[in-house]
């Protein structure tokens, strides 16, 4: 299959060898799990349990709310001790509603939905409903509800289901290990998803540095003629869905459009595996594989972790820190976000926990821009980071928006390459947040205006109605007076 080049990109030191040869191990069930109600993009789930309730493993504990949302299930059996505010694994450190589950140690399964015996004969809607009910979200990190993405096939004609096994972030090896150890499950899940989407072809794209994963996936896919496993060049950010689509099809996704508009839907390998478990066994998404790595971790590992485990327990499971970490990262080092503390739970979108030593972190002071233009050359989105940052620094967000700051995927290549250590991607994240806030405020004002107009119309109508009622009353009184007068005249 012919591959197409993608624009720009960088080649950071991958440091995957720290964890890549560590087989996936299961974490012993923690005593307490903290399951946040919002682990996905969209509306938070609504708790269906209260303190004191007993739950079984796999039982629904929070239902999905709204069109873009996902439910949560109990990762083990036990007792709900509270539904309360707990700090979220988010750079802000803000708290969010979280269900706290005390495990009883028995790990008893509750009643699960029937397995779909022959998913390829089942209607597409049955598969989508199962994926939605199982709480599956994009496990590459964005955590977008997968069932919503599977619905794209209804309006659009899809050609390819692209399974993203690029894993271009340095350090992370969880997708690599999942492909090596559970290749058949990933391929089966991908084929089921392609059936639900109505996509005739499945393409699994894996970066060329994961030879064993490529071999395992090729072997698992050998018997299916519509499934192709492809090695893509090692180039960050190959794992971005827009760039992977471009590498496979040669088509660039236009701004404000989806890859689905080009006939391609992208799902992560771990998501495919979760779909396999949900459809074939009726199991909701209760755990995920993630990488704990970094120079400060004593024994880096790939661990299958129940959702809701505190990060501190993972670190302890990996033998703790061998040196004081200078930074804790949730996700990969390029696009991951700083962790406020170890006292936060693992969620469905957590792909890795990194503890980096001072030598691995670049804390250099930002210097003046030397106009080298490297950031422009390497920007994979074809933007001009230096120019956008200059405008944002001067609070000219509208100009930055015109230059396309909202098309930035925040891959961080510009910040990584900048010889003056200017925090370029930080500027863009700030600008995108501010633009979104302005948009929210504008919508609120629009809404206020509509409400105020409706209020004025209502008052006017009420006044008219009152006047009409008064007139009618007066007329009636007059009639009565007339009638009385006539009667008297008659008498």
């Amino acid at each position, binding site marked *: 299959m012919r591959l197409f080049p993608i624009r720009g990109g960088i080649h950071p030191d991958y440091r995957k060898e720290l964890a890549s040869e560590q087989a996936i191990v299961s974490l012993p069930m923690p005593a307490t799990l903290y399951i946040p109600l*919002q682990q996905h993009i969209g509306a938070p789930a609504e708790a269906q349990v209260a303190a004191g309730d007993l739950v079984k493993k796999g039982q629904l504990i929070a239902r999905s709310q709204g069109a873009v949302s996902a439910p949560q299930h109990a990762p083990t059996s036990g007792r709900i001790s509270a539904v309360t505010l707990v700090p*979220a694994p*988010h*750079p*802000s450190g*803000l708290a*969010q509603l979280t269900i706290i589950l005390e495990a009883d140690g028995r790990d008893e399964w509750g009643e699960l939905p029937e397995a779909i015996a022959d998913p390829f004969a089942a209607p597409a809607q049955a598969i989508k409903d199962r994926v939605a009910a199982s709480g599956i979200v994009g496990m590459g990190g964005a955590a977008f509800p997968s069932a919503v993405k599977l619905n794209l096939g209804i309006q659009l004609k899809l050609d390819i289901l692209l399974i993203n096994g690029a894993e271009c972030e340095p350090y992370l090896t969880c997708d690599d290990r999942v492909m090596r150890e559970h290749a058949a499950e990933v391929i089966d899940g991908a084929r089921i998803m392609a059936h639900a989407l109505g996509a005739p072809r499945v393409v699994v794209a894996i970066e060329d540095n994961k030879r064993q994963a490529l071999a395992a996936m090729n072997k698992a896919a050998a018997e299916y003629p519509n499934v192709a496993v492809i090695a893509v060049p090692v180039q960050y950010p190959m794992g971005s869905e827009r760039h992977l689509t471009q590498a496979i099809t040669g088509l660039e996704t236009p701004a404000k459009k989806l890859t689905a508009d080009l006939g391609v839907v992208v799902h992560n390998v771990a998501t495919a595996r979760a779909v396999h478990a949900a459809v074939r066994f009726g199991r909701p998404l209760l755990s995920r594989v993630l990488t704990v790595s970094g120079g400060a971790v004593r024994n880096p590992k790939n661990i299958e972790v129940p959702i809701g485990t505190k990060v501190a327990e993972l670190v302890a499971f990996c033998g703790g820190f061998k040196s004081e970490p200078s930074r804790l990262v949730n996700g990969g080092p390029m696009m991951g976000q700083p962790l406020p503390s170890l006292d936060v739970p693992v969620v469905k979108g957590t792909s890795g926990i990194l503890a980096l030593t001072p030598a691995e972190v670049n804390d250099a*002071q*930002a*210097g*003046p*821009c030397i106009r080298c233009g490297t950031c422009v050359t390497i920007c994979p989105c074809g933007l001009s980071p*230096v120019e956008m*940052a*200059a405008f*944002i*620094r001067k609070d000219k967000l509208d100009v930055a928006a015109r230059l396309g700051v909202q098309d930035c995927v925040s891959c961080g290549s510009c910040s990584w390459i900048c010889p*003056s250590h*200017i*925090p370029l991607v*930080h*500027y863009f*994240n*700030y600008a*995108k*947040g*501010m633009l*979104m*806030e*302005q948009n*929210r*405020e*504008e919508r*609120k*004002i629009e*809404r*206020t*205006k509509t*409400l*105020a*107009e*409706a*209020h*004025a119309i*209502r008052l006017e109508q009420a006044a008219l109605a009152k006047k009409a009622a008064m007139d009618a009353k007066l007329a009636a009184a007059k009639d009565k007076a007339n009638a009385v007068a006539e009667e008297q005249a008659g008498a």
Partner: protein
Amino acid sequence: MLVAVGSLTVMGVALGGLLGIAARLLAVEENPLEEELKAMLPGSNCGQCGYVGCALAAAALAKGEAPVTVCPPGGRAVAETLAKKLGVTADLSAHEDKGPEYAFIEEDLCIGCTRCIKECTVDAIVGATKQMHVVINEACHGCAKCFKVCPTDAIKMCKVPLTLSTWHWAKPEVGQTLH
């Protein structure tokens, strides 16, 4: 020579007079800028700016009597659009943006007098005589008119809390570097 000067003078006087009359007769009654500015304001006539309704605030803005930060519930977004329209640079740093607010009714203190309902120009308060009232958060735009009329101080103004979905990164603090 005299004829030329005389005829030109007469023409000047006649045309000048004509223009003068036309200016009086065909005068534009309202400043069109006012209408445009009014459209940018929330239009709920809450009165927090100190003017009687959004129309008068727009008039003051058009005359340059009011700063672009005149509208408290409009916040930063309105101030910026107004500044852009009027071609002035809004000094938003001096403007104390207390952030969006919403009204909250303490259920225990509400006596169901319906005074707040009558004040609310966006129909964000639900309730009836001698029944407890409640504010619909999504509809409230924090104008605080209800807050002022409540006889039992049952209404308090709360800040719209920062959530995971509204939080965003702050502007990077880079020293005096040029880039």
